[in-house]
């Protein structure tokens, strides 16, 4: 049975987890180019005022992602 991985939006504010892989190839291309790599530790800094966007930190790089984008990032437990 396949175990479901957590995705980035499930992280609480200031919680961190390691990224494993991406579910969408075209976004994967964009995210890796911006420094979000499988194996990287992602910190959820905070959620946006109206929800639906996330402020994350990866290797000292600060990024803003929409929830559709964040959902494609699978995390370890």
């Amino acid at each position, binding site marked *: 049975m396949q175990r479901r991985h957590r995705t980035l939006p499930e992280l609480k504010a200031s919680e961190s987890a390691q990224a494993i892989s*991406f579910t969408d*190839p*075209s*976004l*994967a*291309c*964009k*995210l*890796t*180019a*911006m*420094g979000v*790599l*499988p194996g990287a530790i992602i910190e959820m*800094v*905070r*959620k*946006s*005022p*109206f*929800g*639906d*966007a996330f*402020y994350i*930190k990866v*290797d*000292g*790089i*600060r*990024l*803003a*992602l*929409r929830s559709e*984008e964040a959902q494609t990032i699978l995390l370890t437990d």
Partner: protein
Amino acid sequence: MLGKMERSEQVLKVGLIGNPNSGKSTVFNQLTGLRQKTGNFPGVTVEVKEGRFTLPKGQAVALIDFPGAYSLYPTSTDEKVLVEVLANTSDPNFPDLLVFVADVTHLEKHLLLFTQVLDLNIPTILALNMSDVAEAEGIKVNPTRLSAQLQAPVVFISGRTGENLPQLIQAIEQLAESRDPWKSSFYKMNNDELRISEAVCQNFACTNPYRALLLAHHKDWLRFLSPAEHATLDTIVKTKQFQSLLQQVDETMVRYDQFTPIVRDTVQQPSVFPVTATDRIDAILTHRIFGPFLFLGVMLLVFMVIFYGYEITGGWVESTMAWLIEGTETLLQPVSAGWVVDFITKGVLEGFKGVLVFVPQIALLSLLIALLEEVGYLARAVFMFDKMMRRFGMNGRSIVALISGGACAVPAIKGTRTIGNWKERLITILVTPFISCSARIPVYMVLIPVALPNANWWVWAQVFGAMYLLGVLAALGSGWILNKVMKSREATFLALEMPVYRAPHWKNVWLTVVDKVANFVSGVWKPILLITSALWFLSSFGPGDVAGKAEQSAAEDIEAGIAADSVRGDLEASYRLEYSWAGKLGKTIEPVIRPLGYDWKIGIGILSSFLAREVFNSTMYIIYSLESVGAAEEEAAGDQSPFERYSSLKDKMAMDTHRDSREKIYTPATGLSLLVFYALAMQCMSTLVVVKNETGRWRWAVLQFVFMGSLAYVLSWITYMLVNLIA
């Protein structure tokens, strides 16, 4: 453009590339200063700057500042431009060599694009920027080892302090003079990629295997490919079952695997990233509750600076123009015909004023926006408001345009260049003019008390506020509709880097302001001059002897005792306007605007508002034979409370009746309907010209004109009917 700046054969073309936020534009400004020009890449509205400088031995350099990109697998129009040029060796902007600016504090992620470029076999210098910051953060780099492992020259620079720029220039000179063929390759293609690359090379003049691979990856949007070439690539990709997207991800990962050890070997950095000032500032500025309020506060400040800037500089422009007009009259009157003087003062100089009045506003707004961008705050605004604005087809950056539109749509629309996605930018451009700008205020001041003569100050203020609300609702509502109607193939991303907060680099800010103002003036002066001249012609000439007829009508009125002899001049001016083509036009469109409650005089007012909305007032002064008091009342307006202004005009308007029915023109129904019309109609030629310039086509300006006009017409009509029903 790029063609505009003449480039002779001997000029060395140097491309400046790098990730967004790498400090590339600071380096560009440091190297070229004021010797730069902004234009668009042919066919796309992506901005490109080209600057000039000279190498120590005299070689002239054209430095082309490409849009920031993360990789050669682009996701935005901006990034695509880079691939479009680098993949096509015969592109006029194809560089002889490249300077790659990388932020040394996050070197790893910058090396992706760098190694991709290396594989294209273009001589490239790696400029490690922000060496000052790196030093402060305890980051140490071994440049010799890095250079050896990457097989490319490495230079440390600090764009902000200008440190080591001479070394960079020297490296450019050395590389340009070098006789050794540049040979560097970084990435080993896998078998699938090799097969594709070879197949492409068999069909195309092959300059480089990686470039051949890029053709296959990007065949669907590269614009330099002919249909035949496109078909060939299609066949290759199909027969070889090439999985472009998966290969792109694969290639990216392999590259990372290759350069990560190099970075580890050559760069020493602290193992943990400390909590910095940026984190502490963001805890407040992007706070879930305070963040948006702080942003609205900042925007309110921006709005107020532009608004008061307009009040002050508008006065300067008025007095400068008055001085110019007077001077021209005294100079020309003795030597030339009356109509020539009139044309120069009311046609040419009016157009000149139409451009001049926006210059301080554009300068102020671009100064403030450049500052916010420079310090890194705009990215936070995008993060906070992305969701909200996306419901209305726009993105987080659009909120800046909408708020500045409250001062003036012209600089606001110029400011939309920061919006990356074309559809979101277009929607922002199309809806921004709905927001009530400062030019509408004088019109509201006249119309509100005329529409509701029996109401008090408090009600008037509420109606005034309702006009602003109406504009906001119209902007968001149309955004929502346009979002549903317009198709976009371009995927929209947020995925945005939030740069470290830093003090603004004043040279960048200053050059941005200069550039924006120069760009605006060169873009609008011709069409605006044309329109003002046309409007002058329409209101100065008419069928037959306009002046004679006006004189006669005025004399008849005075003889009949309708008017006093003392106002003869004003009366003649009024009749001249009535008998002119503009007057005829006003009467011709009367049947069209009659359902809204308007007469031909309002028709002329609406037509002349095309110069700028506040011209409605001065036109009305002429029509109501008040030309001589108009100037005095407009001047006195500054010292009066808002609803006390323009009193004699308001009195005359309130008394006026329709020609046919003898009923009062300015009933509450007409007044409110006209207010709605002024809130919603596109009546500003400068905005239309800027929309045309920014979208590249008249098509969008025309669409906007028709859309806003129809909406204004329908809603004004509904207002007229409803108020009549209630009253």
